[in-house]
């Protein structure tokens, strides 16, 4: 594999006596879709939060495109090309769907110390925002307040907001969580459409989504990586079956 886009080395995060992430190491190549799976409490969300800059690791190193970003702020990471979608949907509910995406476009269109011209109707922001809504299938909801969107639509909106920042790596924390079958199928199709275009780190419980999308899969339990391999190999891995897949299929 070529030089990895994202390299995680020995990442460790403790909450009091609990070790949420215990020496996690993994690489994500350019354009690779890398799924992270594991039972609840395995430390997946903690991992994503550290990659997004919301949490500081105690030990370890994160390198993005050759640059050490272990201590970088969330806004710096966003500028470098890492976009994050949150597990708990957090769009700006008071803004229209279009304005939500336009705000994300604006974040990457130079500084915002611009005080005079109205932002509403600014084509340099709204045209890319509209295009992203179009792609994501929300064009007809552009003018509606984000607070009025359904759960599934909000997750789509989150993805549109992440995409307009032109990220090289998307951190997706359970993009299909809480969705009905139809919505989650649409989300999986959207992500499949992005495959090859952007690298993704995908935390997901939906095994259909994981096996449909992932180039490689990392399995975590109790804060540790127990395996990283291709989907086919993960399916056959005894340790993984014991720890995770078996119980999941039985459920």
């Amino acid at each position: 594999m070529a030089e990895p886009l994202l390299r995680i080395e020995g990442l460790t995060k403790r909450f009091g006596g609990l070790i949420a992430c215990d020496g996690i190491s993994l690489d994500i190549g350019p354009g690779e879709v890398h799924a992270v799976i594991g039972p609840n409490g395995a430390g997946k969300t903690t991992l994503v939060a550290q990659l997004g800059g919301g949490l500081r690791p105690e030990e370890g190193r994160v390198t993005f495109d050759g640059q050490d970003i272990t201590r970088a702020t969330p806004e710096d990471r966003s500028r470098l090309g890492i976009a994050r979608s949150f597990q708990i949907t957090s769009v700006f509910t008071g803004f229209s769907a279009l304005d939500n995406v336009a705000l994300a476009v604006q974040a990457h269109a130079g500084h915002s110390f611009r005080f005079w011209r109205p932002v509403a109707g600014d084509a340099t922001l709204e045209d890319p925002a509209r295009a992203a809504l179009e792609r994501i299938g929300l064009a007809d909801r552009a003018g509606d307040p984000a607070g009025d969107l359904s759960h599934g639509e909000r997750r789509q909106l989150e993805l549109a907001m992440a995409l307009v920042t032109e990220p090289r790596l998307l951190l997706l924390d359970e993009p299909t969580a809480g969705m009905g079958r139809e919505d989650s199928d649409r989300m999986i199709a959207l992500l499949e459409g992005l495959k090859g275009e952007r690298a993704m780190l995908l935390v997901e419980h939906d095994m259909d989504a994981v096996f449909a999308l992932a180039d490689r899969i990392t399995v975590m339990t109790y804060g540790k990586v127990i395996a990283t391999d291709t989907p086919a190999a993960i399916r056959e891995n005894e340790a993984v079956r014991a720890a995770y897949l078996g119980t999941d299929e039985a459920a």
Partner: protein
Amino acid sequence: MSTPSPSRTPPPTWAGTQTARETANQIVLGFLAVLPLLTLAFDEPFYLELFSRVMVYAIAALSLDLILGYGGMVSFGHAAFLGVGAYTVGILSYYGIDSAFLQWPAAILLSALAALVIGYVSLRTTGVYFIMITLAFAQMLFYFFTSLEAYGGDDGLTIWTLSEFFGPISLDDDLTLYYVIFAVLGGCLYLSHRLVHSRFGRVLQGIKSNEARMRAIGYPTKRYKLLAFVISGTMCGLAGVLLANQAEFVAPSYLAWHRSGELIVMVLLGGMGTLFGPVIGAVAFMLLAHFLADLTIYWPVIFGPFLIAVVLFGRGGLYGLIGKMGGRNG
């Protein structure tokens, strides 16, 4: 910061409520524009003075709304800037420097500087801590001015000569002073209107809605908050300049914590995040306080419950009620 709940009402930029509000804006501004004629016609010069003061507080409340209503920063020490602006005029006048062209820029500069320092430190915190630290800074300045014996200490300082412009413009004339304040209020409203609808304004509202999310999409939020705080403090300092000229007097009481509280009440009463709401809030607050005080010395007993009722039942304040009266398609 917690995730905003989906039930939160959208900001007042949505269709429907606009027209009734625009009418209200025009009525209030129109009334303020012709009020001097009424006071002349009915020979009630006192009201000219009262409304001059009301407008000064309207500017201060408006400045607070910029950070409170749009940026989600609850400054409980905003009267500090009122005091810095007023004392700059008072102290310069004490040394015989009366030119408005020196006094006003100096006051604006010093208020901006004070806001930069206070904001820089305070914005390291959020929520209740931010409220307490802004209060603490205001109290520090309050005691600072109280201890300045040379400038009257807690007795305050009388201003013998008001800010001097040129030619026929003299603030000694109550009518001129009234229209100068009116013009400043109009200017501040216009500037604020442009500001909140600009890119900067949208960033500010995004931060109020969800700061963590703003950082995740790439905004260095602290810088934007600090600049908004400085703009707000500067505008409030300008209100202080006008207050000094209107009262012909400055005193530490301008910076007292209950003054800061009153500014917050004006914003909430009028409707935060609306710019014009706080202006209406200031008018309503000052007039009610004035007339209720005439009625009984126990006027806070009536005033308190009234405020609670407006904040509880009219969630958008008085301006929100006006919007509702306009109906959905109004």
